[in-house]
């Protein structure tokens, strides 16, 4: 060990250069790290920007001003029947659609009836049902424009249509309003009347069923595993299967639901019931894992104290441990439910892909959910649906983000340090 080495010359040019190099590498590395963070943030910002940019226009719609003179074109329908259940049919049979088309032609020129939506007369029908006095004189209606006209008015268009829309605009015949039927209607082939209410209601029903099944089952299973389960092969098996289920691809749950719920039990296909059951099986492991962590966080001294004053093991858990663990359990449940609400793939397999033009009536009637509506609209080549899809995405994201925000609020508010 008597090898001679020259002492390091820390002040030498070579060494200074080396140190400078190391510091430069340090700065580069830090910049790369910051870059990675910014890049992920930029992806998120870009995604939200594109969705909001496309989607905001979906919440408004172009209306065309059409005066209809019912005094000149009498609609022969008995005013007393307008309150009846079959008022819709009575008005349709009286030829309101033709009257509206004729009025549009008269007001806007020969192609007038093509400028308004095919379903525009239904708006007039609603107005008449609300106020039968309209039938006696001339009223100016603001009727939804045809999809191409709406797009041309919002984004500008070339050619004959563009010129026509520009002319209408300079005449002051076009107006923009909030697109209420987007919130009130179910799916339709005409973008002027297609809406998300049917899908939203389907989502609510589905999630409600999923919650009704997954929450009690998940919490009870977690209580058993954490508080009472003996350490043996059975509980190991339960534990392993819960952890595995949490990582099984969601589409596999769709296959399970198709084989078991629909083909074996014969439950109603494409319904909120089967959808809810499927999502419940999917979310249950998430709830179990979150609940176990929350239960584990309750200190043993609470249990010991309760046992010490004579509570039974079941009383200890239901009177003391569960209430204390509940905020944590709810946080996990909300996150699990938010994930289930955004899920599409398993529902695709149980037939929720079909076009549903009605708002679902019950848990067994065919229904669709919001993510599925987004998926179905994304297939529509019709450009009017691009806006609709993005608008529906905004609604879905708002719902999901507020659920997540609620979960974070819960976590912060009820977080306890023992």
């Amino acid at each position: 060990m008597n090898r001679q080495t020259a002492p390091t010359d820390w002040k030498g040019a070579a060494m200074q250069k080396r140190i400078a190099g190391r510091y430069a590498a340090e700065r580069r590395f830090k910049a790369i790290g910051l870059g990675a963070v910014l890049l992920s943030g930029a992806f998120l910002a870009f995604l939200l920007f594109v969705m909001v940019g496309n989607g905001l226009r979906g919440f408004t719609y172009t209306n065309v001003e059409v005066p209809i003179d019912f005094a000149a074109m009498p609609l022969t329908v008995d005013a007393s029947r307008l309150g009846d259940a079959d008022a819709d049919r009575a008005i349709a049979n009286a030829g309101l659609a033709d009257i509206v088309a004729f009025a549009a032609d008269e007001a806007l020129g020969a192609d007038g009836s093509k400028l308004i939506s095919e379903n525009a007369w239904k708006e007039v029908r609603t107005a008449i049902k609300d106020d039968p006095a309209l039938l006696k004189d001339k009223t100016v209606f603001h009727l939804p424009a045809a999809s191409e006209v709406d797009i041309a008015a919002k984004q500008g268009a070339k050619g004959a249509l563009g010129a026509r829309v520009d002319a209408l605009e300079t005449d002051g015949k076009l107006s923009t309003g909030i697109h209420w039927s987007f919130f009130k209607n179910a799916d339709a082939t005409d973008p002027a009347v297609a809406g998300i209410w049917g899908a939203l209601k389907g989502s609510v029903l589905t999630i409600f069923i999923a919650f009704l099944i997954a929450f009690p089952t998940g919490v009870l299973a977690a209580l058993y595993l954490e508080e009472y389960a003996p350490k043996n092969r059975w509980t190991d098996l339960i534990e392993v299967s819960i952890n595995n289920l949490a990582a099984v691809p969601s589409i596999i749950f769709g296959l399970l639901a198709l084989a078991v719920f629909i083909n074996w039990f014969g439950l109603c296909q494409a319904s909120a019931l089967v959808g809810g059951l499927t999502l419940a099986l999917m979310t249950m492991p998430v709830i179990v894992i979150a609940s176990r962590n929350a239960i584990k966080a309750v200190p043993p001294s609470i249990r010991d104290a309760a046992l010490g004053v004579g509570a039974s093991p079941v009383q200890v858990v239901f009177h003391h441990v569960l209430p204390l663990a509940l905020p944590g359990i709810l946080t996990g449940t909300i996150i699990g439910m938010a994930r289930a609400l955004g899920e599409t793939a398993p529902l695709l397999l149980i037939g929720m892909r079909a076009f549903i033009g009605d708002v679902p009536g019950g848990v067994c009637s065919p229904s669709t959910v919001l993510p599925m509506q987004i998926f179905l609209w994304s297939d529509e080549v019709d450009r009017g649906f691009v806006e609709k899809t993005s608008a529906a995405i905004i609604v879905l994201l708002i719902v999901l983000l507020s659920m997540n925000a609620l979960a974070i609020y819960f976590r912060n508010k009820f977080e306890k340090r023992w």
Partner: protein
Amino acid sequence: MTFNAAALLLLIAGLALIGWLAGRARSMMLAGASGAKLHSRPQYHGWYVALWLFAPAAIFLAVWASVSPALITNSVLASDAAQNLPAFGFERGAILSDARSVAQGAQAAVRLPAAAPLVKPYADATQSYAWIGIAAMLALALAGGLYAFTRIKPDFRARTRVERIVMAILLLASLVAILTTFGIVMSLLFESIRFFRLVPATELLFGTYWNPQSGAAQPGTFGGIPLFWGTVLIGAIIAMIVAIPIGMMTAVYLTQYAAPTVRKWVKPCLEILAGVPTVVYGYFAALTVAPALRNFAVMLGIPNASTESALAAGIVMGVMIIPFVSSMADDSINAVPQAMRDGSLALGATPNETIREVLIPAALPGVMGGILLAVSRAIGETMIVVMAAGLSANMTANPFASVTTVTAQIVKLLTGDQEFDSAKTLAAFALGLVLFIVTLLLNIVALRIVKKYREAYE
């Protein structure tokens, strides 16, 4: 009068509530009359009666709801009107279901003329079986309730009994997970075995031509290799090229450099990326990313650039997985003992050198485990590939071309109009089985790595 399970469930729940009140009142009355001390508090007596009233009736209801349709059909088939039905087959089933939906009020009139005479027998049978079911259920509920009610005495150990039932319910709840796993394995296995009777398993696993036709099985068209390749290309190669470096560097920056307040704000923002539904990512990929990439590819002069490309799906999937990789890496880096980091810094290494030479090698097993979990997630992801990667089974390494994946094909095979027994639908279950096994193995290996590594430092 149809058999409305939800309404009946509410009915017996209502009866159970009455039972609860009655049981509680009786126990208090008995205690008051005899002057004896109750063993259990009054509400436990109430719960005892309510449980005895509710549980047998609810179990019967569940069994009856699954058995009665078959009984109804049998009795209709035994009636005179059913004698001139066609023999077994699709037509017979269609006529029966047509008559059933009219009889139960789901549709206004029959679509098939042959179903018309069956409507009345169906309605009659439905009604009589509904009455039988309701009567039996009520009888069971009352019998159970009465039995429990008569057992109430001041010294009756109601609490112990109720607690025993509660424990049984807890055990049952935890068995649901096993049941689900069992259900998944069994349903995938059964349908796959039926598929492998039509098409050999070796063909699905090693065949190179995928083009399933509807209807009968045509051997030679169920080669799964193009799908497996597409899945690997998108999920394990392209998505990981995006997710691993960005996720790792994000984790390094957030754990080692970022100020606590920055970390506090950036982490939830990253979690938003994980919380966006996959259908939104799919739409984003198909609408924005894919056309941009196609224009880019055309600019580079790449032939057969498609608007549905492996690259678009892979990049967007990678973005989706960034928060996942980053939080796994974050955990692993945090698990490395502070002493190792301090030691390296004390020797004069810069933070950058410490991270690269000490922290990352020490955290590597955990990071690897996290990456395997991310891969497992990526290959099971469905909506992004369905919407952005296309459905044509190409075996190509060109990321600008359209490829297809296992999950996309499962969706495609199961969303057409076809018989449930055709080779095409069964193939979806066989693909599902392959997917399930692969993700299961990946998860097991990953979890084992993560666990083993954790123990080494703790």
